[in-house]
């Protein structure tokens, strides 16, 4: 009986608040120290990384400069070619006619729709799939009504529309190309031509260098 009392007393000291704080700090220091020492940056990841970015998720500095927010420049380091023909780009929304719409969604900031380490619906978009309705409600009901009875969340999840580049899915493009045969009259890819300088191959200009250690 006496022994049991002593044991429970000891356990209570072990979990006393002071001791618990010191212990948890010590564990945190060791944990962080080990992570740095072993270069295991993945422990700092606040959530699941999107498909693609996951390949370099341990390279924090690829996107983050200390604790500054991620800017468009960060994204454009890699995504500039895809954004070259951005239909929803700066040119459109700096125009006073459309500038007001930026209050609905800040479309000129990549992270307004693409927030990393959060749940994403598809294509790295973490806003609800009906995001187009922030500006285009009239398409499914009201004045335009060209897509009456369509669901508000199907514009891009259904595979029809691409927010940044709709060159090949716009009404104009489809009208122009409607009723084309399944195979075009002149099916052809751009041809690659290799221009050579010599007619016959010369002699190799390095040889013994490859055998250095043997000789």
């Amino acid at each position, binding site marked *: 009986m006496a022994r049991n009392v002593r044991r429970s007393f000891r356990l209570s000291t072990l979990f006393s608040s002071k001791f618990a704080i010191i212990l948890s700090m010590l564990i945190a220091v060791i944990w962080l120290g080990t992570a740095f020492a072993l270069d295991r940056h993945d422990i700092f990841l606040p959530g699941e990384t999107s498909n693609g970015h996951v390949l370099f998720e341990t390279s924090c500095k690829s996107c983050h400069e200390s604790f500054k927010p991620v800017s468009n420049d960060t994204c454009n380091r890699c995504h500039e070619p895809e954004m070259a023909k951005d239909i929803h780009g700066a040119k459109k929304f700096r125009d006073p006619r459309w500038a007001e719409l930026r209050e609905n969604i800040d479309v000129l900031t990549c992270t307004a729709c693409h927030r990393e380490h959060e749940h994403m619906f598809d294509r790295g978009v973490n806003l609800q799939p009906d995001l187009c309705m922030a500006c285009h409600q009239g398409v499914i009901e009201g004045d335009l009504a060209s897509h009456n009875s369509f669901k508000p969340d199907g514009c891009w999840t259904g595979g029809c529309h691409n927010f940044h580049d709709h060159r090949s899915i716009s009404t104009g493009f489809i009208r122009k190309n409607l009723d*084309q045969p399944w195979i075009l009259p002149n099916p052809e890819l751009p041809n690659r031509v290799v221009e050579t300088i010599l007619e016959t191959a010369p002699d190799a200009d390095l040889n013994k260098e490859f055998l250095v250690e043997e000789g």
Partner: protein
Amino acid sequence: MRDKDKRVNSYLAVISLCLLMFFSSIFPDLALAANVSQAELQKIEKQWQTSAHALAEVNCSSCHQNEETKAFVAKPTEESCKSCHENSVDTFLLGKHGIRTLEGLSPLTPAMAHLPMKDDSLNRQMNCNTCHDEHTANTYQASVDSCLTCHADNHSLNYQSSPHAEVFRKIGTLARPNSDSVTCATCHLPRTVSGDTVLVNHNNTYTLKPRDRMVKEVCMNCHGVEHSYNSIFDDELVEANFARPPTQKLQTFQLVRDLEKKRSGKGS
């Protein structure tokens, strides 16, 4: 005393082993140069002599010698390729294949992939000569065979029995896929016209998502818009590597047809 000597010897052995590992890691050339035999060298020379590189005056020293110091380089990196193939390397580094290298991490290996990969390829590191044989510079091989060294998902495995592969086979072995060939590279590393030159976009992710990008960039070089969209948005057909004509009819086209009717009705 003897024990002490033994201990000293073992320390020395450990130190020299560490030194050897250290130097071979900073000078990998030493280890590689010792591995090339006379016979292998002759084989490589022959491969190179029948390559486009030889006829374009790209000799051994172009890649295997540092331009400034004239020091021998046993294993050239993508930096060496970049001195001529700048666009290819730059675009490669932006796709999934190259992004880890761009970000200063170890190169991508199939072991890191989410798609099914071949077991014996899991440790291959992605760089230029993973797909391109650097001495033959044969892009015919790089357009399909290299992909299938690693990729083992159904879409990739079904390529060989697809109508696209049939077209490619009929053309036969050329130095490089011509404008009629449809290979893995045709769709996934699309050719882009830039002024007078035709470049190959080596960003393997570029045409993947959204799928309409592939339609505009690639499919519509040969196929009509309806056939292209009805095919590419059919997951089963994509998995079968377009083995049959599409059966789905996307509503988009009906909408545009209705619009056309409405407009022409108004006009009359």
